[in-house]
């Protein structure tokens, strides 16, 4: 089934936050810190306050409630008080009659800030003890003893860069005050529950006076999960002024001041035996978190739990620190630390293969996870599809033949070289933060037979509403066109978890199913009474009521009306909490994930050695989605995620100035375009896969395929290493500049 919103998207009829017409709406613009770290000695807002069209200028003194939007730790004031920790940190809110007037007035604010020493290097921060939370350490087996037995030991350091979300709809919210000091906020947010709480805290009012309503997002990718600044600021202004206020970041403001995918640095050491079996792995992760903790510790935790990728690693030592640096706080981004964790072991294996003088595919294949393998944190695996995905891909593309063809090409060509990479994916599904693995759904059946479903899931193009609609229709027995998924609204669905971690459909779909099952049972019993039949013989499917398989003289609409008239409850709320999850943070052992999503891909590239440019020539993906709820939606998710992953691995690059300023604006931050995507891009869904741990035996799809993007990095790297090996491999992303300099810069 197709994403139901497309028919409106193509007509421009879909409504986003900035499309909601509000007469008399004021516009909020933030004045932010021009200094990466400093003490605010004086702030002069007088000229801005007197500027044309300006209605108000607010500083931390005006915050009605708690001046705090820290998502996990309370370390992030909404408006800076006496110190600043990064360029772009909000200091004041200017409210004007138009966005232009507010923007002009912001330029009239002056801040006298004493500059203090700032840190921009994660390793330096770690060395100085500037970290968020505590260092995490996990040891499994006996890595020291195992290394002593290894025939091959590869070690080195690596880095992976930041990535800008580049959601098309920038951060924004519209706040409308109501009676009794209530406020309604339309937000582009993935986090209804948490942002609901943040806004209430900032305003100093109970949560039942705040209504957060989310129709859809113009893309999220994690960037709208944890940072509430851009929702709380207009809410505060609207609350004080008792007038509607909107805040819409412009693109360069968004790039410069919002969080990114975390850059990481890695120290690795991997040991293999003579047969290429991994015996031991040591990995230290340095996460470049930025000035506030935001959601970084959760991201780091996921990297930490995924450093073994798709491989069985019997002996391991992992350490991980979240480094506090003076850049804007980084946050969630599709994959949530898993791409970085996976990158480390994939790179280590590439290096090991070089040492051994073998094709890396053979080593990867040998070490793939199997049923019964135990992950470092103690989970004994079952239902592992790593080998099945690999085999399915091999059958499709013949990996060895492709490798041979690449080798042959490279033998006969000097100015261009080919490279290929096979990347397996293993991705744990569930929030690693136990408490978030819950969802509620509210299903209402109206007397005309139409059905309204509300959940905590946020639609951002990933098609979660379509999947929920399908689950509701299937479970209730109503025709799909009778079911509508309503906005995500905190007055209907309280305390909702963010739509992230690929769990939107899993959690909310399950809650919807539970609610619909209760309604179905009730309606079937009522229908049986009406039809004077045994309830066991009555079925409702696609809006048709049948007895013993024969359609009865009772339509869905008549049934709804009659049931309501007979005082049957037509509304149901249900709750789902993912069962059997546990994790001991002290011991670093437990079962943090309900199940795992698998996949394997082959990426082939052509590198122009003269110019340092490259073309992604072919991509073949096999992805395990269980029993797909919608193959059309899942294919789109896979294609989109892979291309985003390739962007991260190749061209997407943020440059910072020496003062910690983000230098890269929209005219320099390049994401893949239509011509960059390979002509051959073939996606296959793994056949005969089922999954008892998620809705309708499906598997989560939002994030896992992102990891395939790593294939572009390793394929290009392979081509480069074929040319020369006399310098260390460049880090990720492999921009044309890095490729060129690797090939041409004298050692």
């Amino acid at each position, binding site marked *: 089934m*197709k*994403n139901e*919103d*497309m*028919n409106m*998207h*193509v*007509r*421009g009829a*879909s*409504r*986003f936050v*900035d499309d909601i*017409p509000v007469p008399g709406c004021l516009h909020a613009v933030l004045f932010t810190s021009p200094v990466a770290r400093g003490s605010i000695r004086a702030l002069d807002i007088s000229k801005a306050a007197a500027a044309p069209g300006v209605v108000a200028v607010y500083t931390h003194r005006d915050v009605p409630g708690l001046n705090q939007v820290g998502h996990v730790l309370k370390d992030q004031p909404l408006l800076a008080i006496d110190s600043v920790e990064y360029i772009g940190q909000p200091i004041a809110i200017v409210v004007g009659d138009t966005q232009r007037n507010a923007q002009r007035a912001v330029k009239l604010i002056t801040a006298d800030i004493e500059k203090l020493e700032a840190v921009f290097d994660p390793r330096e921060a770690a060395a100085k003890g500037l970290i968020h939370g505590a260092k995490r350490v996990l040891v499994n087996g006996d890595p020291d003893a195992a290394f002593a037995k290894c025939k091959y030991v590869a070690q080195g350091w690596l880095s992976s860069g930041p990535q800008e979300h*580049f*959601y*098309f*709809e*920038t951060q924004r919210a519209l706040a409308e005050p109501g009676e009794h000091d209530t406020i309604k906020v339309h937000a582009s947010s993935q986090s209804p529950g948490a942002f609901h709480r943040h806004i209430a805290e900032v305003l100093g009012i109970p949560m039942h006076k705040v209504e957060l309503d989310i129709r*859809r*997002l*113009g*893309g999220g990718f994690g960037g709208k999960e944890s940072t509430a600044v851009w929702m709380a600021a207009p809410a505060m202004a609207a609350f004080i002024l008792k007038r509607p206020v909107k805040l819409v970041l*412009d*693109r360069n403001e968004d790039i410069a001041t919002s969080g990114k995918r975390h850059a990481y640095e890695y120290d690795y050491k991997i040991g293999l035996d003579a047969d290429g079996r991994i015996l031991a792995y040591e990995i230290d992760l340095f996460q470049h978190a930025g000035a506030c903790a935001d959601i970084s510790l959760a991201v780091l935790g996921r990297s930490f739990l995924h450093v073994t990728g798709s491989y069985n690693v019997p002996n391991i030592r992992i350490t991980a620190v979240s480094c506090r640096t003076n850049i804007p706080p980084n946050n969630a981004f599709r994959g949530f630390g898993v791409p970085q964790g996976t990158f480390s072991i994939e790179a280590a294996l590439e290096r090991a293969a070089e040492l051994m003088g073998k094709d890396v595919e053979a080593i990867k294949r040998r070490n793939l996870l199997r049923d019964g393998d135990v992950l470092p944190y103690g989970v004994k695996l079952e239902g592992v599809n790593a080998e099945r995905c690999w085999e399915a891909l091999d059958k499709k593309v013949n990996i060895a033949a492709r490798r041979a063809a690449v080798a042959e090409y490279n033998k006969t060509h000097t*100015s261009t070289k080919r490279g290929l990479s096979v990347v397996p994916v293993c991705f744990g599904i569930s929030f690693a933060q136990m408490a978030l693995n819950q969802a509620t759904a509210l299903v209402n059946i109206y007397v005309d037979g139409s059905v309204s479903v509300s959940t905590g899931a946020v639609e*951002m*193009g*990933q*098609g979660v509403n379509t999947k929920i609609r399908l689950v509701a229709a299937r479970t209730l027995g109503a025709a799909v066109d009778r079911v509508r998924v309503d906005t995500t609204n905190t007055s209907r669905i309280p305390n909702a978890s963010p739509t992230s971690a690929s769990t939107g459909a899993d959690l909310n779909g399950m809650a919807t199913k539970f609610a619909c099952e209760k309604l179905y049972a009730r309606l079937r019993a009522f229908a049986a009474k009406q039809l004077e039949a045994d309830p066991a013989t009555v079925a409702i499917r696609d809006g048709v009521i049948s007895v013993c398989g024969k359609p009865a003289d009772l339509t869905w609409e008549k049934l709804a009306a009659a049931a309501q008239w007979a005082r049957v409850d037509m509304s149901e709320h249900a709750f789902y909490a993912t069962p059997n999850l546990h994790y001991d943070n002290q011991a670093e052992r437990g079962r943090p994930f309900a199940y795992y999503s698998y996949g394997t891909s082959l990426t082939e590239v052509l590198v122009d050695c*003269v*110019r*340092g*440019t490259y073309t992604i020539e072919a991509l073949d993906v096999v992805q395990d989605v269980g029993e797909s709820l919608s193959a*059309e939606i899942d*294919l*789109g998710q896979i*294609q*989109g995620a*892979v*291309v*985003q992953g390739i962007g991260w691995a190749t*061209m997407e690059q943020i*440059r910072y100035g020496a003062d910690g300023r983000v230098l*890269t604006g*929209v*005219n*320099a931050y390049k*994401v*893949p*375009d*239509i*011509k960059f*995507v390979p002509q051959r891009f073939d996606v296959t869904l793994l056949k005969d896969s089922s999954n008892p741990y998620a809705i309708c035996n499906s598997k989560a799809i939002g994030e896992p395929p992102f990891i395939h993007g790593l294939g572009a990095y390793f394929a290009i790297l392979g081509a480069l290493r074929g040319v020369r090996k006399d310098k260390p491999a460049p880090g990720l992303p492999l921009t*044309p*500049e890095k490729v*060129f*300099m690797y090939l*041409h*810069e004298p050692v």
Partner: protein
Amino acid sequence: MLSFILNQRVVRTDERPGMVLLEYIRGVACLSGTKEACREGECGACTVLVGRPRPDGGVDYRACASCLLPIGDVDGCHIVTVEGLIGEPLTLVQRLIVENNASQCGFCTPGIVLSLTGFCLGSPALSYEEAVNALDGNICRCTGYVAIRNAARALCEKLAKADTDPALRLASMTASGVVPEYFRAIPAQLARLHADPRPAGKDAVLVAGGTDLFVQRPDQLLESDLCFLSDRRDLDYVHVDGDVLRAGGAVTIEEFRRSAVVRRYFPDVARDLLRHSSTILRNKATLTGNIVNASPIGDAAIILLALDARLVIVNAGGARREVPLSKFFLGYKKKNIACGEIVSEIIIPLLPAGSRYHFEKVSNRATLDIAAVNTALRLTTGPDGTITDIRVSAGGVGPVPMLIAGLEKFHGRKPDAATAEALGQAVEAAARPIDDIRGSAAYKKLLLGQLVRAHFASLAAAGAAA
């Protein structure tokens, strides 16, 4: 007062001519289907169609980024936003996007609908390759483009038999369901639009497309008096005159690229200009604007420097002077043009016998990106195969688009690998790049040398193929 047709409605407005169309559409006309996502022409979410009357009574439709398009520049035009594409219930493009699942979050989708519709109305050929070219300025962060390409392919299949004659195009696309019926009446309605005379003050800023001006200083331009090069219909030509090609100052880069004489005499330039920005910008940006903008990395300047182009510059009084392009750039953003003067024509000598041209550009992303380094070569060899003339231009390696001086020493040499190597070194030595957002100085210097060698290798390969 400005007048234009917005979808089906005639608009007469006193808004300032420097207000960008996107702001008018969303803020004044309250049509929210056109999205703002970058305001710099980098994403395509705000794409609209601009239908400009032709002298023959027809209308040329081009997809343009509305975020960089001042409303003063669409006086007398038909503007089509996504709300103006009302089908039964969808237009062909819209239907194929839905059928191919080519939309996820939907924020970029209206722009993609408009770009593909613009392709149907304006592209000389309705091929899949051209459809993809038409989408080179539309970024999508969700789909990975596979589904969008499938929709484009399906569209070309559906239109395989459509009439591509420009005179009949509108009728044929209306019949195919690409645009609604009301489009048929638009040419006549535009002809009836009363255009007020537009007195521009003598301090008026000349907008020659505006696709960079409106990135750099939109606020200032909103308040300024503007005059528009697109009003100069007399400067809208490309033709060959003896041994030169003459392009009027008002010619857009896309018109130039598509013109029959450019395709005939400079087919490589027509191809290379695809690397210049994107369709929705090239449809508005002019060659002269790109030159006068004096960016040290402008693709048009680099190509034309190697081709030994000359500029015809006229002042308000009509006095005319000719300046070789190589003498036009005086320093960073300083150029040989006075207030009140305009570049009315670009003169490009046709390639002399024995001459070959080649262009190289490396950017982080191949399409819609500013080069780290770009360079062009015009190489002329005599009957004995030795070099008689050589021109190498280089961008991104100095404060201005440079024509490398002192290459006379290569005259008389064979254009072989040894010459390429020596030339590469000579050009590299002349380069003075700086570290910036496009790359380090060391990178740009080394890269330029490589690209000069690549010129020779590519010409040799082309020669071998021929």
